[in-house]
């Protein structure tokens, strides 16, 4: 990050001119709102929105004591782990298979990559449609198999619905990275292991999987961030946080509290907590990446 080019140009005004557009945009639309969010998290408005008072960390204390907030945290954590775990496992399987196949690998890649283009909200709508209690194709199939299914009433079913939609959408991204990671492993290592007597199964777990760990770790962090933030569309489209509040992930709660329930202070405080989560995850990832082993 701190390496620089050996040759640097000297100009007085030009660099600032070049930077001006970006600095302007991030100044107005990033730093100012982020600062505001921090400020608001330390304030509380009265019911009519006519006055604001400084309450210090009261909003945060209230959050931590609020069972529905803690519940939302728990829901989000469970959701994130399920989405990450399932999404990575399935994508890895597909990537390993695609790596083996000499003929047609390109075709498979194209056919597995296109869901990247699907908006989370649309993914939510599609899966809502397939799993809708009375009319959905898949819910019909489940009913024929004797499985009770109603995401409008059962929170387990609702969670399953959003997990499936989220995993489905994220598969192509994970697949791409795993495939690239697999292809980056030098063939001679696999051959050396084969000559050492290792069969494919053992080769995978003792050689390929450890060497894939930077990719795996990176994807784990990305998937967790994805589950925390990019899934708003899925939740809003598929379950609207329901039944009740059972699938209200944290980012959904921020939206709801800020724009539906008009609790600006609380919503801002939640935003700040989420900021903390992202920063922590990003720092962890960069630290690990810095220390990433250089395989010679």
């Amino acid at each position: 990050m701190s390496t620089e080019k050996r040759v640097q140009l000297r100009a007085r005004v030009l660099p600032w001119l070049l930077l001006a557009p970006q600095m302007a945009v991030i100044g107005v639309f990033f730093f100012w709102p982020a600062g505001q969010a921090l400020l608001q998290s330390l304030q509380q408005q009265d019911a009519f929105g006519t006055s604001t008072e400084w309450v210090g960390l009261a909003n945060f204390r209230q959050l931590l004591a609020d069972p529905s907030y803690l519940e939302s945290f728990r829901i989000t954590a469970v959701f994130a782990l399920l989405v990450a775990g399932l999404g990575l496992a399935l994508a890895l399987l597909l990537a390993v298979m695609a790596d083996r196949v000499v003929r047609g690998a390109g075709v498979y890649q194209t056919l597995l990559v296109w869901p990247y283009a699907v908006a989370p909200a649309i993914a939510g709508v599609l899966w809502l449609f397939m799993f809708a209690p009375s009319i959905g194709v898949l819910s019909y199939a489940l009913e024929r198999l004797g499985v009770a299914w109603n995401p409008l009433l059962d929170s387990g079913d609702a969670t399953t619905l959003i997990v499936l939609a989220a995993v489905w959408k994220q598969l192509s991204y994970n697949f791409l990275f795993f495939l690239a990671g697999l292809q980056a492993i030098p063939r001679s290592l696999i051959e050396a292991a084969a000559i050492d007597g290792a069969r494919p199964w053992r080769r995978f777990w003792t050689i390929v999987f450890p060497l894939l760990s930077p990719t795996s770790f990176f994807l784990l962090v990305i998937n967790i961030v994805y589950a925390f933030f990019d899934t708003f569309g899925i939740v809003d489209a598929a379950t609207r946080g329901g039944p009740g509040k059972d699938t209200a992930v944290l980012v959904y709660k921020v939206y709801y509290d800020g724009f539906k329930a008009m609790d600006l202070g609380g919503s801002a405080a939640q935003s700040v907590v989420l900021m903390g989560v992202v920063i922590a995850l990003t720092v962890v990832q960069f630290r690990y990446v810095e220390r990433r082993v250089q395989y010679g």
Partner: protein
Amino acid sequence: MASVSLRQVIKRYRDQEVIHGIEAEIADGEFVVIVGPSGCGKSTLLRMVAGLEEISGGEIAIGARVVNDVEPSDRDIAMVFQNYALYPHMSVFENMAYGLKIAKLPKDEIRTRVDKAAAILELGGLLQRRPRELSGGQRQRVAMGRAIVRSPQVFLFDEPLSNLDAKLRGQTRLEIQKLHRELGVTSLYVTHDQVEAMTLAQRMIVMNAGRIEQIGTPDEVYARPATTFVAGFIGSPPMNLLRHQDGKKIVGIRPEHLFIAADGWPLQVETVEMLGAERLVHGRLGDGQALTLRVDATQAAPRPGDALKLAVSPDHQHWFDAETQRRMESA
């Protein structure tokens, strides 16, 4: 240890045949070098012995067993790769122990074997290091150590010294020779460097464009090359190959078998290379063909532009048929 037999081995890529009927017998405990220019198929041949490439025709046998359909992991061989292929996430010890762990050897046996190999290769203090912490020469020795501990029937070397600098190459060459003297394992060694081939081989297989040009000891190959290719490939500087006036014959003479004399072939000197202990004189004969001769440094050095007369020792002329490029037994 075991012999290796190559019987009419053929390799085809799609419809293109790249290796045409290789026939060779490598005896138990022999060190055989397969040498040839890039693209001649030597690495492909080695990989077929290893099981990393499929055999399109013919048979390969290790010991008494035909191994055409046997997986690499079951052939009881070890291979030293050009780029070492060390497992980067394992320590030196674990790298060497990997194959033994798979073979389910008991822990103390593994320990003993690794320590022994490490001692032979002077890797003692490096056992806990990772490959990225080692120099090129050390990595190469670890790669060899990994091969040694398995006590396989055959060692396969795929241009192991190509990635080392000149000095290290020389040192490692000696180490490989020493290893073979001590362990005596049947070895197949592939290289494009004829110096490596000459110094390491008990017998050499000279390959060109997917065929064997000659099999023999270094002395045989040097003193009696079977084709013009072998004549020009083995020996540095290369043998002079001159067209005879009748167009049907080619005569080969090594630079060290030409002498400056009072009378003989006329040579116009073009350049002289000073190599310290000797000089290489490059020039042209009367008919325009290029010629190189070696001159000892104790003699006065010829200069560019000089006209010399050269004598040839009759016992050191090699005659080749201009059409078949093969050696003719009589002039």
